[in-house]
């Protein structure tokens, strides 16, 4: 061991393989950690499932909204509700705690590529999102006989993958700006109103007119409209406008996160 004291690090090809392995290991253990943290995994999976069961399936009277059955329409809303919760609590909550305890600092001082940390958190949120969406789809199919084609399901999965990003950025902003103790509360204060106003719980056209206008600012609205579009529901805006809505929100959040991170670094 002592003989290697002043030698240079390993060759480049080895270092690429090692970097890849670090990314995979970080992602795997971030997911394992979240799964073992029952307070997180039960709540984040349980709430959308229970909400969908009550409001989408039990309260369902077999009506249709714009050619889509209520059970299927609500599936889109609660699927988005689920993936948003997974990314806000998984990324925002995790980062806030690891920032406050100094764990992130220890990670930054290690040779781990900083990007591996972020990617691991996003990947875990995506996997939780996929689990939630799959559970809700299965519930819809078995209880309300919702018909979902494999292609609709695949597009929902793809939207989960992409849709996690804007909320991951929002989670980062909250973690960087809000003291750790307040983070879960603040996340709920943003998550729940944003879900309601974005039309995830109650179809958007049943909300007051003012809220329908306000929804245009919410990423939850745009993401749920994109999921509905995969079900053949003609939404208020075009798909392009919803993509731009999500992109705009993501860029604003990234900007705020960058500012907040710089402020934090200057004071550390």
């Amino acid at each position, binding site marked *: 061991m002592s003989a290697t004291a002043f030698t240079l690090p390993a060759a480049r090809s080895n270092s690429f393989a090692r970097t890849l392995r670090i990314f995979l290991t970080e992602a795997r253990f971030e997911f394992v950690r979240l799964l073992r943290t029952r307070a997180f995994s039960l709540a984040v999976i349980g709430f959308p499932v229970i909400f969908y069961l009550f409001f989408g399936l039990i309260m369902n009277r077999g009506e249709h909204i714009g050619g889509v059955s209520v059970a299927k329409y609500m599936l889109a809303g609660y699927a988005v509700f689920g993936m948003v919760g997974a990314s806000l609590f998984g990324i925002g909550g995790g980062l806030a705690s690891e920032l406050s305890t100094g764990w992130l600092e*220890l990670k930054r001082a290690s040779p781990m590529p900083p990007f591996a940390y972020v990617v691991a958190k996003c990947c875990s949120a995506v996997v939780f999102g996929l689990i939630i969406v799959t559970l809700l789809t299965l519930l819809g199919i078995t209880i309300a006989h919702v018909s979902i084609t494999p292609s609709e399901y695949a597009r929902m999965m793809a939207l989960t993958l992409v849709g996690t990003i804007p909320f991951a950025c929002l989670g980062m902003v909250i973690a960087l700006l809000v003291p750790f103790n307040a983070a879960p509360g603040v996340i709920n204060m943003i998550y729940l109103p944003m879900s309601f106003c974005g039309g995830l719980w109650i179809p958007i056209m049943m909300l007051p007119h003012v809220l329908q206008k306000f929804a245009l600012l919410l990423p939850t609205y745009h993401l749920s409209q994109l999921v509905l579009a995969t079900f053949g529901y003609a939404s208020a805006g075009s798909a392009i406008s919803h993509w731009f809505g999500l992109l705009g929100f993501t860029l604003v959040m990234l900007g705020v996160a960058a500012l907040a991170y710089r402020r934090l670094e200057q*004071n*550390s």
Partner: protein
Amino acid sequence: MSAVLDPIQATPFTTSSPAVATLSHITKRYANGVLALDDLSLTLHRGEIVALLGPNGAGKSTAVKLLMGLSAPTSGAVRIFDADPRHAATRLRTGVMLQVGKAPEMLRVREHINIFRGYYPNPVPYADLVRAAGLEGIESRMFGQLSGGQKQRALFALALAGDPDLVFLDEPTVGLDIEARRGMWAEIRSLAARGKTVLLTTHYLEEADALAHRIVVINKGRVICEGTPAEVKSLGAATTGTSTSRTLKIIRCVTEVSNSTLLSIPGVTAAELTAGVTVISSTEPERTLRELLALDQNLHSLEVQSPALEDAFLALTSN
């Protein structure tokens, strides 16, 4: 410098060993205006154990953060292995133990260790790490289930995971029982013996005394004193007197001789009567004792001590 080394502190390094890490003329002012470091310079050599001592808020953690590349200096230069501390190649050769409130609690000790081993091209074999950090038998426990001392040992294992050439240990033995502390000291000594460099901050002066080849005392962002534990003790005691001799001893006795007479005895730098016992600081203890015993035939309860590091530390950092 080597001439004054206490035999117990005999070391494998000399100051001519290559510099492993340097802080040169570092000033660090935070965005809120607080001046944390004020023209601080510090050099760490290969194979040495340096203890950074100072009261809370002295700038210890800021210095460590700068060395780890977690924070940038307002002015001055930080070099680790003659490179930028933020470079990936530099980080591969350093290991860090910070005061972490908690590591992710729902991962097992074994998992934490292997995640960190995975960051390095040539990690220490898993079994060796577990043995060095004394983690046998608790490897399958979740981090959150560990006691305070076990957590410290697990974090120690993470710092050593990559077989680093330079190790930063921030308060490494907090919460450890005596046996575990001795065990960690032995590990730290064996690191230095293998040519590794260790920088530790500690509140236990006894730890700095037992472990460090060199102690650097900082206060208000400046180095106020630097040397072997023996040197720092003498310097600290001498700040109240006039001499900076390195042979300073504290003499305690019960005597009739007056203070003014005592101060006229060669070598005496201070004399004080407390609770019937006279405490004398002397830079020439043998000569002082000879005179003192001749002056007072009834002198009794004689004790001669080396000044404690704690006294030195308090003397140096007061004001």
